[in-house]
């Protein structure tokens, strides 16, 4: 296929061709950046919680007198534990995707000089790590002797804790964390086990805390650990258990208020936590579909118009020996050239826009592999859009050349 005649024909339609090139360039730039936004939303939603979400539920009670905390814990654990389908009930301060329950700045030394970030702390009574389904990768799970009462403040004075692999690397890069100690104020932690994952309660991508910066502190139930419970149930029975738990709680704990907002199964809490991300991603997909649709319609419209204009020329070409395939390929080549110009401009624009966004909104750098994907999508779109009008052009009979306009 010769490109030169195509180019010289395009010169006759400089302005219209230029506008299509501009449109493709804009579409390419928007497509790459929006696609990147969607991908980062989706990958954020893949957050690994490290717990057996499908068998877990969380219940929060409020408005009870702190003096009855121990009694309330005993009543709730016994009452909920007796429900059919429930495997175990534990007192826990919060769960992944649950309410934020305690973030503490930690240091490697008692003097508080070597600050290492603000992880979130999980407090739970005996058996909680097993009920959560935490996967141990080193060390051991806490034994009965490791669970201590909180005498003052929020934490035991000194405790044997589990930390996640990620946070262990954060505290002691490249070293074995087992047996090492760290501090928050006067409270000391000694690492007895490292777990694969345990995500924070409310992960904020833009915050300074990593998704897996957590510490599990074995604690006996009792103030301040009261009113918040982890239910482990058979996954099939979980939804029913959570519904029935309300009636059971109204009977066994009439002095406390059931928090409808926070109490639910972990799959529901997870879904609610990511609702905005999902909505944003959905909306962006909608925008991209609209964008591609409009671009395709623009190509169809313009090419149809050109085909109608060039009927006579097409007829002449056919009359002097061009095959249908030649005519078809002519329009395909023309489209390919226009789209290519657009893509070249668009890639430059996409990078420029991304650099600008990085500067103004602190978005991450656009990975380069988005550019060829965006380019390929537009080439494909262009070829699909031009096919209809080009086939119509190829169907123009040679006899048209002999007719007068």
């Amino acid at each position, binding site marked *: 296929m010769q490109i030169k005649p195509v180019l010289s024909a395009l010169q006759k*339609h400089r*302005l*219209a061709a230029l*506008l*299509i090139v*501009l*449109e493709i360039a*804009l579409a390419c*730039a*928007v497509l790459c*950046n*929006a696609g990147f*936004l969607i991908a*980062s*939303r989706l990958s954020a939603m893949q957050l690994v919680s490290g717990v057996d979400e499908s068998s877990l539920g969380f219940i929060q009670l*409020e*408005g009870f007198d702190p003096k009855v905390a121990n009694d309330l814990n005993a009543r709730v654990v016994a009452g909920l534990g007796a429900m059919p389908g429930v495997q175990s009930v534990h007192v826990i301060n919060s769960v992944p995707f649950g309410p*934020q329950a305690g973030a503490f*700045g930690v240091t490697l030394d008692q003097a*508080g000089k070597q600050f290492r970030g603000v992880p979130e702390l999980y407090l739970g009574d005996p058996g909680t790590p097993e009920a959560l389904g935490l996967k141990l990768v080193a060390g051991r799970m806490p034994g009965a002797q490791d669970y201590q009462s909180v005498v*003052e*403040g929020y934490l035991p004075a000194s405790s044997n804790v589990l930390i996640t692999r990620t946070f262990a690397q954060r505290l002691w890069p490249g070293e074995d964390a087992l047996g090492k100690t760290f501090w928050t*104020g*006067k409270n000391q932690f000694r690492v007895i086990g490292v777990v694969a994952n345990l995500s924070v309660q*409310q992960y*904020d991508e*833009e*915050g*300074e805390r990593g998704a897996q910066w957590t510490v599990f502190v074995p604690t006996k139930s009792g103030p301040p650990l009261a009113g918040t419970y982890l239910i482990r149930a058979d996954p099939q029975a979980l939804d029913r258990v959570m519904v029935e738990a309300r009636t059971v709680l109204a009977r066994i704990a009439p002095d406390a*208020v059931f*928090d409808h*907002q926070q109490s639910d199964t972990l799959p529901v809490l997870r879904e609610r936590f990511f*609702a*905005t991300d999902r*909505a*944003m991603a*959905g*909306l*962006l997909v*909608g*925008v991209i579909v*609209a*964008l591609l*649709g*409009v*671009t395709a*319609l*623009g190509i*169809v*419209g*313009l090419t*149809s*118009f*050109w085909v109608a*204009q060039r009927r006579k020329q097409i007829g002449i070409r056919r009359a002097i020996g061009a095959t249908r395939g030649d005519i078809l390929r002519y329009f395909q080549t023309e489209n390919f050239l226009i789209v290519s110009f657009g893509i070249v401009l668009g890639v430059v624009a996409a990078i420029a*826009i991304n650099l600008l*966004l990085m500067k103004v*909104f*602190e*978005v991450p750098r656009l990975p380069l592999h988005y550019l060829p994907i965006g380019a390929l999508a537009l080439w494909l779109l262009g070829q699909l859009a031009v096919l209809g009008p080009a086939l119509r052009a190829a169907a123009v009979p040679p006899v048209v050349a002999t007719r007068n306009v």
Partner: protein
Amino acid sequence: MFAYYLELALRSLKRSPGLTALMVLAIGFGVAASMTSWSVFRAVSGDPIPWKSAQLFVPQIDNWGPNGRNPNGDPPSAMDYADATTLMRDHRAKRQSAMYQISPSIVPAGAGKHPINVSGHAVYGEFFPMLDTPFQYGSGWGASDDANRAQVTVISSKLNQKLFGGTNSVGRSVSIEGRDYRVVGVLNDWNPQPRFYDVVNSGGFNSQSDDVFLPFQTAIQAAIPNDGNTNCNAVPKESGFIGLQQSECVWIAYLAELDDAAAVAAYRDYLQGYAREQQQAGRFGWAPNNRLRDLRAWLDDQHVVPRDTKVSLLVALGLLLVCLVNTIGLLLAKFLRRSGEIGVRRALGATRKAIYLQFLTEAGMVGVAGGGLGLALTCAGVAGVGWVLPKDIASLARLDVSLLVLTLLVAVLATMLAGLYPTWRASRVQPAWQLKSN
């Protein structure tokens, strides 16, 4: 004459109905899609109090020193009790309020009713006029109530509905955490999103509304504990709520209203002086490192607005741009082939002005039709976001009327300009030339 142009335009558009439909659809679709997504994105990134955000300021005082600063060197985002109460006592801004989040239980009147937990804030009386909170009944409390630790409260219309059946409850009493408080005001529906006055505790967005407001010092005296975040650089020496008040832990949000640049500068000097005093007194072992950001800068700094949202706004605009370019391209392709027709009309005695008017009418018709379609689709889109988006976001999505008008104007103008250029080119050529070349 205009009626004649309209008829001509209609005829010309009818000659290529597919292309015309395409142009109208592209404009309508582009306007609707970009406006709908804009209204949603704006809902989560909007300025909650646009008429006043430039006068509201959040002071930050560095009471933790170099070890407690974030990587940008910023001091803690909230205040400790000592600094907050001193700033309130000195009262250097036009209006100001320290505040902390509370979650007291309220016992409704009548036997056998369960206590309910509500969330709210302990604030100073100036909080209400400073934020222009709308009142259904009554008003906020005065400075003397703050000073006397009066047992007064402002409640939300929602709580008023629950407790008093929505009647004017000013003067009646509510039992909060076992004490009786006199209602002085009932707010009208007021739940700004993001919750700009206390982003430290709400993270900006909170579907639960603030239902009860108590005077700050009254709540402190009644030992109603802080329900929001508490951040400490050291464990408080004493435990409990009293220990928290004596500690360097930060848990209090602060807002000040400053009217002009001079007031801002004066307040900055005051904060500087205060920090220097503390340094001289030996409480701070470091040079003053205060911040005084206006509300927008503060929301930005606290990452209340997800960065994605702002980028998404640009994506919505990009879509509109693509649609406009598309329409212009189609119009150009159509109009550039009309030189023959222009030649005939000129030869028959039409002036250039008449030609311009005719073509502008035709392009304008496409623009107006597209704009009208866009308007209808936008209304449908904004009404329909509730189907696909979570309730708390969808309820915030509001049509920005001024922006919609602007978009429609841009769409119509762009199409008319697209019609103008080929006409200008064609009408410059001698009519005889065009007739001959035909």
